[in-house]
C-alpha cells in the first residue's frame, strides 16, 4: 500500500506565488519572498511547480472552485421606437466565412513541382 501522497512544500504557497507573478514579480523575487517565510527553494523549482499546477488534472469531485458565472439578466425592454434598420449590423450571410464551420485550411504548399529544363 502506498503512503501519503507526495505534496510539494510549495503547495500551501501557491496563491502567494500566483499573486506575485500577477504583480510582475520575477521568479528570483518569489524565491526571496518564500525565503523570508522559511521556505528554501530555487527559481527553476518554482517555475516547474507553477507549470505543473497549470497542467494539473484533478480527480473527479476534487476540482478547485470555479468562479461563478455572472447572473443572467433579462434583456432590456423593447423601446417604443423601432430600431433604424439601416444601422443594424448586416445579417450573417449563408456564404460568409464562419470560422467555426470553415473546412480545414487547404494546403498552401504546391503539390506539383515544375522542373524547368536546364540542359543547354
Amino acid at each position: 500500500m502506498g503512503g501519503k501522497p507526495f505534496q510539494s512544500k510549495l503547495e500551501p504557497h501557491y496563491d502567494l506565488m500566483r499573486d506575485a507573478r500577477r504583480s510582475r514579480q520575477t521568479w528570483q523575487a518569489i524565491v526571496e519572498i518564500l525565503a523570508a517565510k522559511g521556505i528554501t527553494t530555487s527559481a527553476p523549482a518554482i517555475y516547474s511547480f507553477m507549470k505543473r499546477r497549470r497542467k494539473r488534472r484533478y480527480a473527479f469531485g476534487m476540482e478547485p472552485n470555479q468562479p461563478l458565472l455572472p447572473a443572467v439578466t433579462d434583456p432590456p425592454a423593447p423601446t417604443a421606437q423601432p430600431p433604424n434598420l439601416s444601422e443594424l449590423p448586416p445579417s450573417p450571410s449563408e456564404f460568409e466565412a464562419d470560422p467555426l464551420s470553415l473546412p480545414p485550411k487547404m494546403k498552401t504548399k504546391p503539390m506539383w513541382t515544375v522542373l524547368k529544363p536546364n540542359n543547354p
Partner: protein
Amino acid sequence: MMEGILAWANFAGVPAAIVDCDGEHLTLSKRFPEAAFVDATRSRDEFLQLMSSMPDSPLSVADFPAQATEFLLDSMQSLRVLDALESNGTRMTVLMFAADDPTATASMAKTYRALGNRVDYVVVKNPARFRSRLFDESSLAELFRQNGVPVIELPAVTATTLKQIDNASAEKRRHLTFVEAVKMPSFLAMCRFEIDHFINRVYVQCEDAARVLVPDTAMIQNRVVRLADRLAAMPVDEFQPLNIHE
C-alpha cells in the same frame, strides 16, 4: 522509368511537373529533391486535390504506388477524372510495366478494362524485372501492338555500374540520378560509357514515344543523337562472312 522520362524531358527542353505519391519507395523525391511527396492515395479528397491542382505544363509525371491501382481506378471513375482532364485539353498516359507475375498482370488488365482507349499507354520492359515472354504472348500485348503503343525497353545495367552509382550517391550524401552520377570524377570510365549508352537508349525510345508524352512533338527543342548500331546495321553474310566493304 519515371527518372528516364524526366531526364529526357530535361534534355529535350520540355518543362515537366512532378509529384511523388509513392510513400513506400519515394523514388522521385529521392532523386529529384524538388519533388514533393503527396499522399494522394490516402483518401479520395487528397487525390481530387492533386488532380485539380495539376499545373499547365506540357508534361506532368506522377508516381503512384503499384498497390493503389484499385483505389486510383475507382477514384478516377467516381470523380470522372478523364472527363475533367479532357475539358482541359489534357490526355493521360499510363505506363504499363510488362511483368509476368499474376498480381502485376491482373493490375494491367484492370487498368486497361477501366480506362480503355480513353488514355494513351506506354509499355515499359525492364529486363531486371521481366524475364519471361508471358506478356509478349498475351492478347493485351497483341492489342497494344495493333494500336501502335510505344514500347520502352530499358537496357540492362551491370551490377558493377549500379554499385558505382550507389557509391557516387553515398559520396554526395543523396540519391543521384544516372545523369548526375556519371558526372562524378570517381566514376569508372567503362561504367560511364555503359550509363551513357543506357541514357541514349532511353532518350531515343522516349523521343520515339513523344507523341504520347507531350501534347505536340514540335515542343522538343533538343533531339537525340542516335548512336549507330554497327552490328545491326551491317549483318554478316553467312556464306561470305569476310566480304566486308566499308
